[in-house]
């Protein structure tokens, strides 16, 4: 199942002009990513570093100083300013149709959520306060953030996430056939003897793209998914129902799940590690181990920004931390995740790190997995 650019009833019905605008933002971001950003290291060497040496009489000694040196390069500053502007224009290009068509979308979502023939379910927890370390930040500049809930029946956070995610990913060079679930299924085929779960959990499911893809690919698997925001989860549930797949969505914190021990055969997370701090990540690792059954697999997939060859590369990749409201970007990029998996209770010989091919482009993914002792 495609996860990007799929058509369903809860998407905004865009005008030709709105589609043109989104296409233009995709083109701008592709150009910045393919033709401008690759020169950032040259800009550092040619402009930033010499300017820093002249000002301080020595080379930069820390990540903060390397970042200061980057910003002494006019070419880098221009890229940074343009990249920030392009990221903001993603949200303008998708936010206008979302809010313009919101009444119809909410009605469509309510019909799907309340349909007697619905396949999955939605369990919200009105007493739960979404984790502030995620909810209080407009992560990757999504206005209102992942956990925004504007009241009964609201779906804006989910709609923005899916539509903005598509424009973002196509601008990164992702193809319409790209799928993190697809990359994970291929990994299970290649490294885990085609492991197939009877029951699985997707942690930090956001708008439910991967959750729905698992449910589509594995119709006999009971798929559960959690996230922190009601606006995100209503949208994810309605989206899955519109696509005709069964996913059971729950409003829950990854570091404090309400599932009994040994509930799932497979526990996954996609692009979540870089959105949370160390403490929550470690608690989430422990919880994932607790809820997976003996012999079951836990797999956390994320962006391939780890293992930078030099501090300068690491700082260049960390632009998102300061300019794209990704406060935990650098924390994730430099964390010792194998040690965290060990500390959570996985046996050392069950832990593997993976360098994953994308399903349909040249991008790569990182993953770390562990298997609970049988």
């Amino acid at each position, binding site marked *: 199942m495609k996860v990007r650019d799929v058509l369903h009833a809860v998407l905004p019905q865009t005008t*030709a*002009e709105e589609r*043109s*605008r989104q*296409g*233009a*933002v995709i*083109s*701008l971001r592709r150009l910045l990513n393919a033709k401008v950003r690759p020169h950032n290291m040259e800009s550092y060497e040619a402009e930033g570093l010499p300017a820093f040496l002249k000002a301080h009489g020595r080379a930069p000694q820390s990540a903060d100083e390397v970042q200061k040196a980057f*910003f002494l390069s006019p070419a880098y*500053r*221009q890229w*940074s*300013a*343009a990249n*920030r*502007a*392009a990221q*903001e*224009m993603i*949200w*303008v*290009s998708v*936010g*206008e*149709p*979302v*809010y*313009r*068509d*919101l*009444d119809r979308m909410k009605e469509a979502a309510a019909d799907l959520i309340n349909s007697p023939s619905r396949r999955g379910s939605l369990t919200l927890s009105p007493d739960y306060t979404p984790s502030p370390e995620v909810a*209080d*930040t*407009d992560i990757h*500049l999504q*206005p*209102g*953030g992942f956990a*925004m809930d504007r009241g009964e029946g609201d779906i804006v956070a989910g709609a923005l996430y899916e539509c903005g995610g598509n424009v973002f990913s196509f601008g990164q060079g992702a193809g319409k056939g790209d799928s993190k679930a697809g990359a994970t299924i291929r990994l299970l085929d290649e490294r885990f003897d085609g492991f197939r779960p009877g029951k699985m959990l997707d942690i930090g499911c956001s708008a439910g793209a991967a959750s729905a893809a698992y449910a589509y690919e594995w119709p006999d698997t009971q798929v559960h998914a959690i996230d922190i925001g009601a606006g995100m989860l209503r949208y994810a549930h309605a989206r899955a129902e519109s696509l005709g797949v069964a996913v059971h969505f729950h409003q829950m914190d990854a570091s404090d799940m309400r599932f009994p021990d040994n509930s799932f055969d497979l526990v996954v997370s996609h692009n979540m590690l870089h959105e949370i701090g160390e403490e929550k990540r470690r608690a989430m690792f422990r919880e994932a181990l607790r809820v997976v059954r003996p012999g079951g697999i836990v797999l956390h997939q994320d962006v391939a920004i780890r293992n930078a060859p030099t501090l300068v590369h690491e700082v260049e990749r960390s632009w998102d931390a*300061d*300019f794209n*409201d990704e406060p935990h970007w650098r924390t994730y990029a430099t964390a010792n995740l194998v040690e965290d998996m060990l500390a959570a209770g996985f046996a050392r010989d069950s832990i593997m790190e993976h360098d994953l091919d994308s399903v349909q482009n040249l991008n790569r993914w990182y993953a770390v997995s562990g298997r609970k002792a049988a």
Partner: protein
Amino acid sequence: MTTRMEALGALLETARGSRPQSLANRETEEVLNITLATLIELAVANEKIDRLERMVADLRGETVESLRDVVYDGAIAEERQEATEALLIRALRILLDPRTRREQEQHL
């Protein structure tokens, strides 16, 4: 019925957090943002013209290439040239402002 203005307003109202700038001063960064946003709107307008050209070509029973290959000369060509020059003056007004030159001359 939510208007486009209302939709954009709702979106802008929900954005949170500080806005770090990359360029040396805020005015320059804001001008860059306005320029890039205008570039996107130009792309939108170009696509609209492209759609209309294709529809007109279809209505006229000719190819879109032949529709676009119309060459004007004489008065029409002069009118187009004048319109282009006027557009450039509007866009580059800041470079042509005589007050700037007068101020520079005073410093010489």
